[in-house]
């Protein structure tokens, strides 16, 4: 079973459909699937819903799909610092389902783990809780959140072996494993594909069972807030 594809475009072949739900890894611009996002732009797929913590920034990352109006709805925790995201939301052009960051991550993991619902204290007593099942456990109130079952996951890792075992690097791991887990099909872009057997089986962050297609490519890895200290 060959999982390696030669480009983002071919790796997405046959997987795209208007109106689909895509789970995307990354936090801000860190660990985002740049190449697959570009291929989504190229594909012209539209009316998509994206579950992703952020929506990139103006003109980069998932922000590109805002510019082309391909996104119908975002499931996110954070809008800040993306003017076009806020504009489309406030003008009603874009649907936005706010998810607390931890709820979003857990909903993705839950979907990947066959858990259709779980209870959390997060958001109780806020707008997030409106319309959701409430239940008491040991005298405290919790709300039910549902697992996310995506049609497609797009993910960025550092290294993959040929069977799709993945290793992430530092805080670029973030939402990538849960996003990868919750998709019917998961496509991954990496900086390097290494021969199977060259990764220590105890160092693998996400086993290849979650990974269906892999591409290797160059990443810009733009820094959102370059901050330094003086020596």
């Amino acid at each position, binding site marked *: 079973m060959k999982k390696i594809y030669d480009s983002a475009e071919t790796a997405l072949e046959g997987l795209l459909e208007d109106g689909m739900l895509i789970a995307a890894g990354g936090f801000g611009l860190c660990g985002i699937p740049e190449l697959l996002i570009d291929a989504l732009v190229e594909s012209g797929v539209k009316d998509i819903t994206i579950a992703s913590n952020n929506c990139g920034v103006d003109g980069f990352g998932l922000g590109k799909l805002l510019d082309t109006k391909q996104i119908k709805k975002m499931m996110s925790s954070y809008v800040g610092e993306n003017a076009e995201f806020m504009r489309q939301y406030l003008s009603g052009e874009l649907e936005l389902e706010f998810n607390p960051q931890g709820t979003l991550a857990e909903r993705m993991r839950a979907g990947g783990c066959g858990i259709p619902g779980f209870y959390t204290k997060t958001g109780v007593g806020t707008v997030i809780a409106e319309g959701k099942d409430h239940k008491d456990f040991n005298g405290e109130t919790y709300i039910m959140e549902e697992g996310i079952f995506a049609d497609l996951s797009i993910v960025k890792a550092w290294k993959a072996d040929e069977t799709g075992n993945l290793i992430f690097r*530092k805080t670029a791991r973030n939402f990538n494993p849960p996003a990868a887990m919750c998709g019917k099909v998961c496509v991954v872009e990496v900086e390097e594909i290494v021969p199977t057997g060259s990764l220590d089986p105890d160092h693998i962050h996400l086993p290849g069972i979650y990974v269906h297609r892999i591409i290797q490519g160059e990443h810009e890895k733009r820094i959102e807030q370059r901050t330094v200290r003086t020596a």
Partner: protein
Amino acid sequence: MWDRNQMAARAAEELEDGWYVNLGIGIPTLVANYVGDKDITLQSENGMLGMGPFPLEGDEDPDLINAGKQTITELPRTAYFDSAQSFGMIRGGKIAAAILGAMEVAENGDLANWMIPGKLVKGMGGAMDLVAGVGRVIVVMDHTNKHGDSKLLKECTLPLTGKNVVDRIITNLGVLDVVEGGLKIVETAEGVTEHELRAATEATIV
């Protein structure tokens, strides 16, 4: 009256040796400069325990950022993990305290810090999870907004981040605890009288 750094220094006194702590964006970030020789491990909720200082020029790593998307560094004790695990430890009560900024705090401990309807949509990020999950929620903020109105209210007017979640508030005027029936003054800032603090506060002071 305390300045930003004095507020951060005062907030640092809240932290106990051995704690794992989450610091929000803004003044809370400065708290890290004042922990002294206490053994504090900072969580960055995007997937890291043991957050170090900003890098030296030239050492920035795009794969190493904090929850404010700033470039940071790692420490000998650092461990990385994914977002589900990160918020698992937050929700599970493993983080002893979060120090956060706020737009409004109510006298019952309600907190609002994520949006102004129709105007500013920031998003709650990890704040709703933090206030619901961590052991102790400490708010650090200016006592009044730019119009001079109290940010310590009888009731929040903005959409809530959490209900009955704030334990302690540190402002430029002093320190207040959320207690039965309202807020209780713990101390006043240097040069601030209790009268001045009361006058600047809309919330009930008990």
